[in-house]
């Protein structure tokens, strides 16, 4: 049954994956080949736009798309546990998010490897972008699990990004003076609670990275299980 589920999701989502790879891989290729701006700027632009956009595209379709098309009851009628269906959808959506970022990384390594920046900087940047995309994907899936249309699911994802950005701005204004200068571990740990807190970790604080990963992996897991309980509801009643 896994194979059939994977095949179904691949057929439905492959165009999004192809779109992301072509758009962002092409952007990186053109920008890095022509060098009209610094390599770091090209890559950062590709990641800043690519991560949230692909997460938004990938989160719209799996659940809300089934509701909008009216195929959700048929899907739930299959002799397979709903959590397995959700798992396959989540994994395929994750692939849709990550494949374009991988395309950008590949282009950057081939065209601009060690030219203006080091390979480790490239890998770190892409790792952070991939983590952000996965977080946004899981949050959007969880909060948009009962959205009736793809447009509404997309609005949920946009609202999440906006809330994160605004709250991070406030977080930076309030905590930054203490984070940077005091070295207070408790304050730094508090900063790791925010999904974007990783962008404000002072250098050489590996424990803060580990804490951030642990916190948000736990949150994402909890959200996923919460979504697994909720997504089967059909118009106000559980399936």
């Amino acid at each position, binding site marked *: 049954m896994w194979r059939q589920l994977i095949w179904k999701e691949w057929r439905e989502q492959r165009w999004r994956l192809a*779109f992301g790879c072509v758009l962002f891989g092409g952007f990186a290729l053109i920008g890095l080949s022509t060098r009209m*701006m610094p390599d770091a700027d090209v890559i950062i632009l590709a990641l800043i736009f690519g991560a949230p956009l692909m997460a938004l595209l990938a989160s719209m379709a799996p659940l809300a798309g089934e509701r909008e098309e009216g195929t959700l009851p048929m899907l739930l009628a299959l002799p397979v546990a709903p959590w397995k269906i959700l798992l396959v959808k989540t994994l395929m959506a994750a692939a849709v998010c990550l494949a374009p970022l991988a395309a950008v990384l590949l282009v950057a390594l081939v065209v601009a490897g060690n030219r203006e920046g080091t390979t480790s900087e490239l890998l770190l940047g892409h790792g952070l972008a991939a983590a952000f995309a996965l977080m946004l994907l899981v949050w959007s899936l969880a909060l948009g699990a009962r959205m009736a249309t793809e447009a509404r699911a997309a609005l949920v994802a946009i609202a999440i990004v906006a809330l994160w950005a605004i709250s991070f701005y406030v977080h930076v204004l309030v905590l930054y003076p203490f984070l940077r200068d005091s070295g207070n571990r408790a304050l730094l740990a508090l900063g790791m609670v925010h999904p974007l807190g990783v962008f404000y970790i002072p250098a050489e604080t590996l424990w803060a990275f580990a804490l951030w990963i642990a916190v948000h992996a736990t949150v994402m897991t909890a959200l996923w299980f919460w979504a697994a309980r909720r997504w089967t509801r059909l118009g106000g009643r559980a399936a």
Partner: protein
Amino acid sequence: MKRVCMLLWREWRENRWFLYAGLLLLLIIPAVGLRPVPLSSPDPYAASNHMVGVRQIADITCAFAVILGGLLAVVVGVAAGCRDMRGRVSDFWRSRPVTLGSWLSARYLAGLATVLVATSVPLLAVWVLLLVAEPIMNYSGGYACANGILAYVVPHAALLALIYSLAMLLGVLVRRPSHAAILAIAAALMVYFLPILVPPLGTLNFWNFIENPRDTPVAVLPVRETAKAVLDRFRGLTFRGWFLGASDDGLAFMAAAAGLSAATLAAMVLSARRQWRVRMNQKLIVWSLGGVTLLLFATMAFQLRSNLDAQLRTPVQPPGAEARRRVVDIHASASRGVLVLCDNEVMPFQNTVFYTAAAFEISGDQLKLGPEIPLGEEEPWYQGGRAAGTVAWSARRPDRLYQLLRRYEKVEHIDANGRKWSAGGKCLEMSLRTLALDSNPPGRVVHTLDLMPHDDGFHCFTPLVLMGDRLYVRGPLIKGDHLRSVRCLVIDLADANRPQRIATVDMAPDAWPDWYDLGPSLTIPLPELPDLSPQERFAVMIALRGKTDHPDAWDGNLMASISGDRASVATHRVTFEGNAVHIALLGERRSTPLESRVGRFGDCSAIRGRYFYATTHSLSTGVTVFDVSDPTRPRRAAFYAAGPDWSMPMVVLDDGRILLGGNELHVIKPVPGG
């Protein structure tokens, strides 16, 4: 007629909320910034400070109109195109005794009037406000000034009409508001930005009218003369000035926009008549938007691409230095020379910096740096104080570095219009130090020559040029509030360890024109520098000008210059007639709309053989190389992207390699084929 009126009434009822929203955004919200203004003050600058509220209103209204006007046109157009076009409502309308053409036309005109009134009325209101207020204010300029608004208010209306027409066409074709809106926004972005990226479409480039072409200074007037000045301004406007922004570009733009709008309207009526429909789905929209984005980016990238490589690109940190340094000046010959450095974290010209120097040699892909030589502190020029970063070096005396030390006080003058201006700083001390580069440690002061003139009034902004066996120092001589002369000190270096001032040459101010744009031709007298041929004197003049932000270059054969707006490059023929030089324009190459949008040429230039090199501040600062082998048609040949930086010094070596300073030292390979 009655039916048309009924249709228009009905469309007004549908569109009035858009009009109210537009006027609220563009008229009411900016007015929040209005503050009580005292209309008279003995201090002209106090009046301008109190007029900040007016300036704020103008800036906000103009920005909103330009940015949100297109969005309003999209929303109104899509609404007009999609409304009543689906299902039974559409059938109902088609069954009414009104023709499809009149129905669509009424809808089109009502929506267009909504958009134009909502955007143009606030602009014209601000225009009237500025007409009254500008004579009291001490500043006018930019797109948010009276003359600026007049330049683009009508072209802006034509642009919005085009965007509205496209949005309505898409609404009629797609018939789904969300999809049509997305496509209409993409179309609007193409209308705004494609003419910038594709030069043949430059006629449709709306941003030309947003530039600041009419930065007419407005004299500060007492209030009693304000009314007369306002009336004079109204009377002075011609028909073209009132309606067309007084430019031929405006005519061409509006003709093109009107033609496209008419074609779009015809297509809309045809598609409605024939029930044409484009069925959009998410996949089609996403791929379309992605394709357009990639196309625009590729067009932009291939115009601005970098096609020069660096032989060497390295941070500069001399032995013993505790941190990286910034290269602020380069003196080089072959593969060796001297770098002038400062702290990489401090921005010169705005902060006090400590300058140092270091000898360098480039060997293959390696940069060898000598120990740092302290030169001294330099304060920002507008504060007065000390200046220590001006040096000269040449390969003829590789072990000697000549440093111009100054101490000056800032002086301000008041002109006849009551405006303050500064000629830089009045010199209190000026001396030339000879530093030994071969001493241990390097930088030992071998000799100090006092250069202070016997009469006061010598002002700074003093470039230092070393040419042959002579040093030349130039500066304005100001007494009272007038520029009396331009003084050039000539220092002989026959004895490298004991420079001697051998001549003081004073020239009338107009003998040393401070030109920015040379125009078609220009004849100027040459400075009476001793023992130099006319060509050599001209070379000194150009070199001294190059040190004061006038990036001209002359190789003894061809002269090239960068315009005052730093957006074009021109070539000139130079001929000598007795004691004068005649400079005639040969060719010019203006930046494309995209190039001028993303950057300007900098302060350094050089000409070698068939190429003219100019530093460029763009998305990525660097060097632009122009092929001037055909002087009548300079063309862009190459570009090197140095990365994010500013104010980069440049030297072109005889073998074609380019040395570029800044955050790093770049050694750029010669232009291929050069």
